[in-house]
């Protein structure tokens, strides 16, 4: 083994050590949450290997707040947002990709503006709008500002543009109208993009917090994130075991889905980013 190869070997060992140290730090919060949640509360800050296991923290958390209702609210919310997003973005993307209507380029720039000026920062005026529409404290109010997604329109437009014109024309010659062509030719070909966009959208809205916090104020509309925050900050004494259990309950569906479909998740987020 030459001197150079030895240096490379040492380099690689050092890199491996750095990688594992970093990975350890990155998984630590989740690992801690699991530790605290499955052990009695006297072990929440005391890491004894012989600590007894328990599910009591989960039971206590589940009974202390209406998490079942919050789950339902979040489920309704993300489903509603995704369905409307898919329909609206598909139609708009089709228009941008295949119809050269007057004002198309300006309209497209106006759509892209939302990538920078997101609903997340327009909370004051959007709240005013929701008040005027009488929608404050409803689930649609949480979703409405996000439903026409510039990101979704952009992603689908890029995909539709790659569809060969021949396919489009063949369908037209068979007498299909524009909407039939969209449904029979474009939508099936964009399936991987729909899956990618869907995963990103669901993760985003499952985790979204500030706007739902502002626009909801009752159990019947609050999504999980807001419910968790109200639960964790209420003055029932800081019991970390119960709070971490609630934290895991809130994150569980996405986390489990992620662990099962890891490759799909990573690729979707990647796909959604490289545009």
């Amino acid at each position, binding site marked *: 083994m030459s001197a150079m190869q030895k240096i490379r070997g040492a380099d*690689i060992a050092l*890199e*491996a050590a750095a*990688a594992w140290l*970093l*990975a*350890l730090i*990155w*998984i630590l*919060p*989740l690992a*801690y949450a699991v530790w605290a949640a499955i052990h009695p509360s006297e072990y929440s*800050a005391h890491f004894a290997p012989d600590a007894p296991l328990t599910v009591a923290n989960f039971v206590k958390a589940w009974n202390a707040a209406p998490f079942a209702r919050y789950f339902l609210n979040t489920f309704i919310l993300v489903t509603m947002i995704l369905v409307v997003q898919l*329909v*609206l973005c598909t*139609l*708009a993307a*089709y228009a941008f990709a*295949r*119809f*050269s*209507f*007057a004002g*198309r*380029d300006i*309209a497209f720039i106006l759509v*892209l*503006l939302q*990538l*920078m*000026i997101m*609903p*997340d*920062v*327009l*909370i*004051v*005026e*959007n709240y005013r*709008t929701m008040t005027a529409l009488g929608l404050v404290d409803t689930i649609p109010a949480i979703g*409405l*500002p996000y439903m*026409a997604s510039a990101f979704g*329109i952009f992603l689908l437009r890029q995909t539709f543009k790659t569809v060969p*014109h021949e396919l489009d*024309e063949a369908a037209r010659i068979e007498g299909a109208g*524009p909407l039939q062509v969209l449904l029979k030719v474009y939508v099936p070909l964009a399936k991987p993009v729909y899956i990618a966009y869907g995963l990103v959208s669901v993760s985003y809205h*499952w*985790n979204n*917090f*500030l706007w739902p*916090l*502002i626009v909801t104020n009752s159990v019947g509309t609050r999504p999980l994130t807001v419910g*968790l925050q109200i639960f964790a900050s209420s003055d029932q004494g800081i019991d970390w075991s119960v709070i*971490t259990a609630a*934290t*895991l309950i809130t994150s569980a569906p996405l986390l489990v889905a992620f662990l099962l479909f*890891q490759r799909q998740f990573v690729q979707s*987020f990647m796909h959604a980013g*490289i545009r």
Partner: protein
Amino acid sequence: MHGVEPIAGAPAALPPQARFTGVTPARLAVHVYGWLLLLPAAVLLITFTHYPAIATLVDSFYSTPRGRRAAVFVGLDNYQAMLADPVFWRALQNNIIYAASVIPLTVVLALAMAVLINGNIKGRALLRLSFFTPTVLPMIAVANVWLFFYSPGYGLFDQLFGLFGTTTHNWLGDRHTALACLIAVAVWKDAGFFMIFYLAALQQISPQLAEAAAIEGASRWYVFRRITFPLLMPTTLFVLVNAIINSFRLVDHIVVMTEGGPDNTTALLLFYIYEVGFKFWDTAYAATLTVVLLVLLAFLALGQFLLFDRKIHYQ
């Protein structure tokens, strides 16, 4: 030319009168279809993005309506109040420090993670899993866990430093460490997300480049600095833009961990807007603060537009 695009590019080139004289039913149908398809999305976009952006600006020139007293035009009064408001300056300064720390740390770590995983290290799948997991967890949930890490006395940090005999420290209660604690959470949350873009870009780079350089006797660091890093530049730009946006957009962890305290040392701009708008209910002043945030974002948008390849927009 393709069937549904009979007049591609034509309207802009023709004088205004000519545009309407030669309209055949087929051409008209293209315009009608295009706009009809766009209509539903456009209505929502205008209602919840364009209208509020403009309304924010308008409202910043009016007073906050209170009770039966309607809003009155006050000119630049809100802006004068803002310039005289120490909390605004504090929040702006905090946000700049926050962004200037979170962005480089996140980008460097994301790149390091990607490079480490891209080599032939053992257990790559596990490493990637660990790095990426924070991305799918709600910020609100993990902030609660970090809250425990920072608790004085029995929190993880104090337990860890206690091993070295240091006394307990109120990490989030100390005005010197509170912002740094939030920066750590933000970096931890986003580094793994940005890693995957670097990972994707690295896989596009031919390994033969590095091999050829190695045969020439180039060190690994040299290869990275002179070959890999320049090739990753588009990815770095993309990651930077997103990291910048996130540093102005995401304040969930502040709501959970510090509520802007102690002494406003962790109040970021959006958090202050939230506080003014929904705790003090001074909507006119909140609108004025939002204008500042929108101007900041608009500059970023402009920067992105000038920096990025235009084919992103007009492919």
